């Protein structure tokens, strides 16, 4: 008898335990039934690389804001793994596919690992949209804020502004073998040759920061010694600008030597505010996410997707399409004025 009581107790406790995690689940249950009554709401699952990390929490907030705005059209679930593990991410994607969502949006931890489940999803008629996974084949579209050439030109334009469109500069990459970084640097040099005749590249070889701010700092000091008239450092990896900024700051060269790269607001906030850095490049990942969702709605409604289509966000009013990759004009200049709007 006691054991039966014990068993009942377990049942009650388990119920209580799970139920207390579920306060808000009840509300979305009612939402769900409404949806099935009214029907025709597009069910979208958005799977980030990971949850609980500043960058993806920022994206999550953007996705939730979009969902609130479009709650009559679509029902959005934003859920990712709790650690950066491709297997855990694929498991979540599998669950969504088997739940029968209409659209699967994601950013792959490892594009290769997602091919198989995306293939299954598309076989079931699910629309598959990715970001930062441009190499994938089993997708409908991949959305990117920019292409390599666009970002390179953007970085050079910003650097030229700081340098007054004249002077000596070098290029820095995260690693010699990093394809994207080298493409950006090539595009930047091309842009300078085409538009800024008074700017000269003094070091033909790319300077490598090994994607390490400490090495970027040391290499910047070396370069400043080697080229006393050096005025600009065009970095690519997110470690380049913070490392270079530390060197510029220590050598008291603020306002004489300028650096730029793609960078995280959290790592450059202080330098931007103190004026060592004027601008760093980035894109707004929440905007990219919203573009994916807008695209999802358009595709679910059966609209044709073609180059020049307006995907409803700044920088994506007339997107380019290369194969399966949708490219916006989403490169963003982060300065001391807007750095605090980013929570990562």
């Amino acid at each position, binding site marked *: 008898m006691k*054991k*039966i009581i014990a068993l009942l107790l377990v*049942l009650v406790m388990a119920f209580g335990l799970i139920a207390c995690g579920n306060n808000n689940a009840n509300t979305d249950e009612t939402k769900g039934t409404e949806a099935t009554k009214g029907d025709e709401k597009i069910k979208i699952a958005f799977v980030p690389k990971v*949850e609980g990390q500043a960058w993806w929490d920022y994206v999550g907030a953007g996705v939730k804001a979009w969902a609130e705005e479009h709650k009559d059209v679509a029902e959005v679930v934003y859920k990712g*793994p709790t650690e950066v*593990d*491709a*297997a855990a991410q694929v498991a979540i994607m599998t669950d969504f596919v*088997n739940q029968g969502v209409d659209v699967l949006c994601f950013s792959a931890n490892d594009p290769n690992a997602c091919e198989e489940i995306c293939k299954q999803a598309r076989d079931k008629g699910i629309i598959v949209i990715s970001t930062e996974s441009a190499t994938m084949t089993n997708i409908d579209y991949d959305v990117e804020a920019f292409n390599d050439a666009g970002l390179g030109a953007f970085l050079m334009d910003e650097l030229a502004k700081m340098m007054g469109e004249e002077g000596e500069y070098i290029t820095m990459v995260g690693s010699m073998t990093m394809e994207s970084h080298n493409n950006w640097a090539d595009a930047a040099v091309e842009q300078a040759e085409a538009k800024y005749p008074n700017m000269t590249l003094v070091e033909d070889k790319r300077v490598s920061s090994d994607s390490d701010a400490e090495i970027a700092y040391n290499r910047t000091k070396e370069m400043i010694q080697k080229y006393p008239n050096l005025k600009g450092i065009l970095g690519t990896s997110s470690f380049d600008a913070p490392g270079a900024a530390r060197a510029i700051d220590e050598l008291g060269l603020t306002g004489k030597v300028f650096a730029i790269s793609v960078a995280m607001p959290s790592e450059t906030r202080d330098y931007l505010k103190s004026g060592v850095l004027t601008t760093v490049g980035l894109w707004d990942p929440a905007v990219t996410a919203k573009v994916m969702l807008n695209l999802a709605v358009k595709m679910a409604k059966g609209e044709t997707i073609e180059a020049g289509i307006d995907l409803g966000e700044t920088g994506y009013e007339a997107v380019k399409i290369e194969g399966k990759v949708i490219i916006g004009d989403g490169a963003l200049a982060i300065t001391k004025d807007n750095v605090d709007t980013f929570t990562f």
Partner: protein
Amino acid sequence: MTKIKNFVRNNQYTSILVGLLIAVLALFSALKGSAFWRIDLWKGMTMQFPEYACIALGLMFVFISGHHDMSQVLLGNFGAILAVQYMAANVTEGMANGQVAGIIFIGIGIALAIAVVGGLINFLLVSYLNVPPVMATIAMQMVWKGLSTALTKGYAVKGVPALYTTVGHTYIGGFLAVPVVIFLVLLVIAIFLLKFTTFGEKLYMIGTNKKAAKFSGINVHGMLAATYLLSAIFATIGVLIMVSTMGSAKADYGISYTTRAILILVLAGCIPDGGQGKISNILLSIVTVQIIATGINLFANLNTYYSSLIWGGMLIVVLIMSTQVGNRAPKKAKKVKKAPQNAA
């Protein structure tokens, strides 16, 4: 009724787990109803659990012997990387399926050979050199990860033959997933070893009291060698199933499975203190953990952290219940090795 009473009296721990499983099922049914009972969702679950269930089953032998093995997944990944590299290099387009199958089997053989090497190294470190198991296997975990990363520069290895992934995703007769069949084979092997051979009995003895086991003439070294081998081989088979899900192999795929396997075993009352562990409990535990992992994704507003919360909560409930219930009825205990709750 008396039958149930007797079952509950004799299998208290199992009863608790059955109760929990029923509670979880009831809760998800109540909150999500038809969405939870979708056939696709359940078929999806059968595709997902074998990966880590094989790993957990391997770890079970080690736990019963009172040891620990943290190196499983990363050892498996190293073997899988070599296997996929071999397959990718030797399978050419237009090859007959029979030929491809041959190459796949050799690839699998390579991975299993690595598992044997890895298992033996763990055994030598732990048993002959007396390094504490947790530390030795964490060190080996790093070694395997380092080797894999060095070999692949951290990238995923692509080129898994289509035949491999297709077979891995086949439902025999429309419902029985191939990975489940593989898991069932390992399960039968495990049951056979533990219940029908002296290996099982000796293993529980070593786990309960290593010294006593040694003095009673058991070849402890030999037993531990077999244990670590089983752990490595079972885990590698789990990783090979994962390779078909991911369509590639990588140094850090499935790192979250290390903790998932431990969770399953501890929830099932199979703790690394040794001498305890019952296969039926482990099965219940696997099923419950998978249902929660998938069920949680049905709730739009619950992020995946809640599954950790629920698992943690369940663990506490089970531990409290088992110590409370276990202390009351030691007189009805059957053979010591089959009554894990009484050993405490």
